[in-house]
């Protein structure tokens, strides 16, 4: 079937098999490589993308289900040639090592803070519990998320979007 969807503000369409995972569709058919394939069974969270406003694991979703959906990945969070403020904060705090899981963490943190910038640290930790960073940079992520929180709160107060293409 033809799947037509909006990925990072770009409307695209491609042929998808009925049994094709959204993860494979994004990577292989649309070239969106920031969603990573690792465990393929919903345990590691490296494939997280925001689909219709909710951060989901794309390895447990069919491409066919994403027809007419809006998908946001780390590529969309960054502008054309710059990286987003959230990514800058991650870099500043060294909240990564090999970088494999980082796009997923960035997009999930973006989703959590956009939804509720006032969430407590404990809540955010709990909500990130479905993700694995095998380099173990969790400790660096905590101060990064703390700083990002104040940024997202400020943006919410001023009612301005955090990235150009995100409402």
């Amino acid at each position: 079937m033809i799947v037509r969807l909006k990925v990072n503000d770009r409307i695209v369409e491609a042929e998808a098999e009925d049994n094709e995972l959204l993860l494979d569709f994004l990577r292989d058919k649309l070239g969106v490589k920031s969603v990573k394939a690792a465990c393929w069974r919903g345990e590691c969270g490296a494939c997280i993308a925001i689909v219709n406003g909710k951060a989901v694991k794309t390895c447990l979703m069919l491409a066919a289900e994403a027809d007419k959906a809006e998908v946001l990945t780390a590529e969309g969070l960054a502008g054309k040639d710059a990286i987003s403020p959230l990514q800058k904060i991650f870099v500043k705090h060294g909240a990564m090592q090999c970088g494999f899981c980082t796009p997923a963490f960035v997009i999930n943190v973006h989703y959590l803070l956009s939804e509720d910038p006032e969430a407590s640290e404990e809540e955010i930790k709990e909500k990130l519990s479905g993700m694995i960073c095998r380099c173990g940079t969790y400790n660096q992520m905590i101060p990064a998320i703390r700083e990002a929180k104040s940024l997202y709160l400020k943006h919410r107060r001023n009612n301005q979007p955090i990235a150009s293409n995100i409402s």
Partner: protein
Amino acid sequence: MIIELSFGSPYFTLPKFKYLRPKSIEEALELLRENGEDARVMAGGVGLLNFMKERLVEPKVVIDLKGIPELHNIEYNGRLIIGATVTLNETLSFPKVKSNYPALYEAISMLSDHNLRNRSTLVGDLCEALPWIDSPPPLIAYDASVNIRGSKGSRNVMVKDFIKGMAQIDLAPDEIVTSVELPDAYNTKGKFYKFAKGSEFSIASLAIVYAPRNKKIKFVFGGVSELPYYSEELSDMFSKAYSVADYLSSAISYLRKNFTPLDDSLASSEYRLNIMERLMVQGVKQVVQGEKE
């Protein structure tokens, strides 16, 4: 030895099937009638897609219910009704769930993780009927039932009767569960306890619902046997007991005498029994006597 775990191995891909997305319950039932045993119904998909990757199920047709607006509905009118495609996070953010059904709220918030809860559904979890998934115990404690639609009409089954065994439910191939329904739980106190490694599957869990007015208490254990474990006698003993301490000691000896939990790789039977005791003592102290955590 070469371990074959490469891209394209069955582990990473889904078997071939036809994806169908009906727009109404009638259309979905029609598709089920046409395809019979070859079809599988999908709500959130988290469980089904994983089972398919492992080749535990290989349906020729997958019927996605998410296109049916009627099933994506959660409402409270004295009774709480949760539709088949309402996700766990949507259930959690429905205010009445937290205020009136705290044991259910707590159980769901401890299920899997936030991202999976954006996809998986309460009805889907229930239909999987796996002992380490904790949604049935609070549902049974709240006397919940499921609404079923089939080609022969609709019926309503109590959750405790709906789950018949490990991965076995009271559902014909031409039927779908449209919603789960909970009666009013006004004036009750509820709590849910889970004993597990991190957010992993439960070794033992306990849902308690207590109605102080008529001194009625319900315990439903999860993860300790193929079916959720509860006992009318265990509940009846409460209203007859002289004191809470008296009740606990007789309840524990009853449990030891009448119940043998699962013995598997997660925990031994004796270990589970000890955990069950502790959860019960903690639960009674907190829910009945109002002790702080």
